C-alpha cells in the first residue's frame, strides 16, 4: 500500500468514533498492541527530543525501503506513534520525503501535532524524515 492508502485507511477507521472517548480508547489500544522495542534500541541516540515522555525511534533499511520501530513510556503517545510507524514504514526514502501527512488533521488529532513540546509528534515526523534524508545521502 502507498502512504496515502494507509492514511486513508486510518481515516476510515476513525470515522467509526463520534466522541473523544472512543477515539482515545482506540489510540490507547493501538499503543498497547505496538510491539515492544528491543532494549538494545532503547538507547540515548534513539530518543526523540522535545517530548514530555520518552519516545524512542529506531530506523533501518531493508530492500531499498525504510522501516521504523518505536516505543514510548506514555500509552497515548505510543498509540499516536504506532500510527505514524504504520504509515511511514516500508517505503523508500523518496516516498517518505514526498509524503504529506494529512491523516493527523483529518482524524482530529492536529492539536497533538501542534503541541510539539508536550508530546513530540512533530519531532517524531521530523526525525523520520531526517532518517530518510540520511539514507538517501548514504546511497548516493
Amino acid at each position, binding site marked *: 500500500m502507498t502512504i496515502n492508502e494507509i492514511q486513508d485507511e486510518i481515516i476510515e477507521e476513525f470515522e467509526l468514533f463520534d466522541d473523544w472517548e472512543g477515539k482515545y480508547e482506540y489510540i490507547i489500544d493501538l499503543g498497547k498492541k505496538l510491539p515492544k522495542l528491543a532494549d538494545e534500541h532503547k538507547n540515548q541516540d534513539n530518543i526523540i527530543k522535545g517530548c514530555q*515522555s520518552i519516545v524512542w525511534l529506531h530506523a533501518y533499511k531493508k530492500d531499498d525501503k525504510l522501516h521504523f520501530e518505536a516505543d514510548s513510556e*506514555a500509552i497515548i*503517545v505510543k498509540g499516536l506513534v504506532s500510527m505514524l510507524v504504520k504509515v511511514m514504514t516500508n517505503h523508500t526514502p523518496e516516498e517518505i520525503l514526498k509524503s504529506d501527512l494529512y491523516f493527523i488533521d483529518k482524524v482530529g488529532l492536529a492539536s497533538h501535532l501542534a503541541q510539539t513540546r508536550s*508530546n513530540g509528534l512533530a519531532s517524531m515526523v521530523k526525525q523520520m524524515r531526517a532518517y530518510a534524508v540520511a539514507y538517501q545521502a548514504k546511497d548516493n
Partner: protein
Amino acid sequence: MSVLDINKIRQDFPILDEKVNGRDLVYFDNAATTQKPFVVLEALANYYGHYNANIHRGIHFLAEKATSAFEDSRTTIQKFLNAAQKEEIIFTYGTTDGINLVAQTYGRKFLKEGDEIIISTLEHHSNIVPWQMLCEEKGCVLRVIPIDDKGDLILEEYEKMLSEKTKFVSVVHVSNALGTINDVKFIIDKAHEVGAKVLIDGAQASSHITIDVQTLDADFYAFSAHKLFGPTGMGVLYGKLDILNAMPPYRGGGEMIKEVTFEKTTYNELPYKFEAGTPNIADVVAVKFAIDYINELGKENIAAYEDELLKYATDQLSEISGLRIIGQAKEKVSVVSFVLDGIHPQDVGVILDQQGIAIRTGHHCTQPLMNRLGLPGTSRASFAVYNTKPEIDKLVAGIHKVKKMVL
C-alpha cells in the same frame, strides 16, 4: 465554611466561563500561572486607552499620570512585602529575571573562587541555573540541601553545610512541584550567623502567604506578578537598600543613568539604577490592581479557603486506589502532586484535558527534584481561591476515567 463568597469571586474571572473541549473549564494549573480578574484587565485597557505615555521623562499630563500610576504600584508592593523603603522595590520581568539580576551583579562582584552557594533540592530550574553559571565563571561551589521522603528540607544537614565559606544562600519559599512551605526564617537566620546573604524565591509563596521581608530579614526576595492574578512579564525583586546600593548596575541604557558623557557615565539612584530602558509600564500599573484585589479578599481568608480545598483534595484523591500523593510536607500550600500506578503522567494530563480539566504534568522545571524522588514526573493540581470542591469532584471522576481507559 469560608467567609469569602466564592461564586462572586468566580464572576470576577472571565476566563472561568470558557468551555474547553465542550466542557466547563476546570483550571487547576494555578501554580504555573493564575487567571486574571476584571480589575486587572480593565487596568491594562485603561492605561493604554487613557494615559499611555513614557514615564519619568515627560512633562506633559499623560506622562505625569503614567509616572504616578507606575510609582503607586511600587508603593503598593512595598506595603505588600512590608519593605522599609520603596527604593528597595525593583521591577523585573519575573522571578527568573530577579534571580539572574542578583547572581550577575551581587554574585559577580562579591563572590570569588572557593566561596560556597547553598540552594536546595526543591529548587525550580530558575533558582539553579543562574547559580551554576556564576559558579562556572567564578569557581564557586554549589551545595544542595537534601530533602526527606515527604518533601521537607533536612535542616540539620543545612546547618552542617554552613561555614565561613558560605557566602550566599538561595532557597525557594514554597516548592512549586510539591507545595512544601519552607521555614525560610530559620534558613535566613542561620545563614546570617555565618555572614552569608540570602535570596528567597517567592514565586509560589506570594499569592498564598503573607510576606514580611523585614521580619524574615531576607536580603533579597523575588516573585512574579503572573502568579498572583497579575500580568505576565512583570516581577519584583526586593533587596535591602545598603546591599542594592553596593551592587553594580545590571543592564546599561536610558533611565538608569544620571549623566552620560563618552568618557564616563554616572548611574542613577535606586531603584532606577536597575531599571534600564522603558519599563513594562502597563503591567507594572496593572499589578497594583491585582494586589489590591488580594488585599480586599484578605490573604488570611484566601489561605484558609485554599487550605480547605487542599484538605478536601488530599482526602478525595487518597481514596483512589493506585494513586500516590507526592509531597506530604508538614506545611503545604494548595498543591497536590500525584502519580498513578502504571500510568504515565502525560496520559493523565491528555485525558483530563479532554474533559476540560487543566492540570500540569511533567517535571515542573524541577528535574533534580524528580531525580531525587525517582520519578519521571508527576501530575499536579494546584488550586486558587476561585476553585471549588465540585471542581475537585470533577478531577476525581476524571482520574477514575483515566484509569478505566488506560489500565
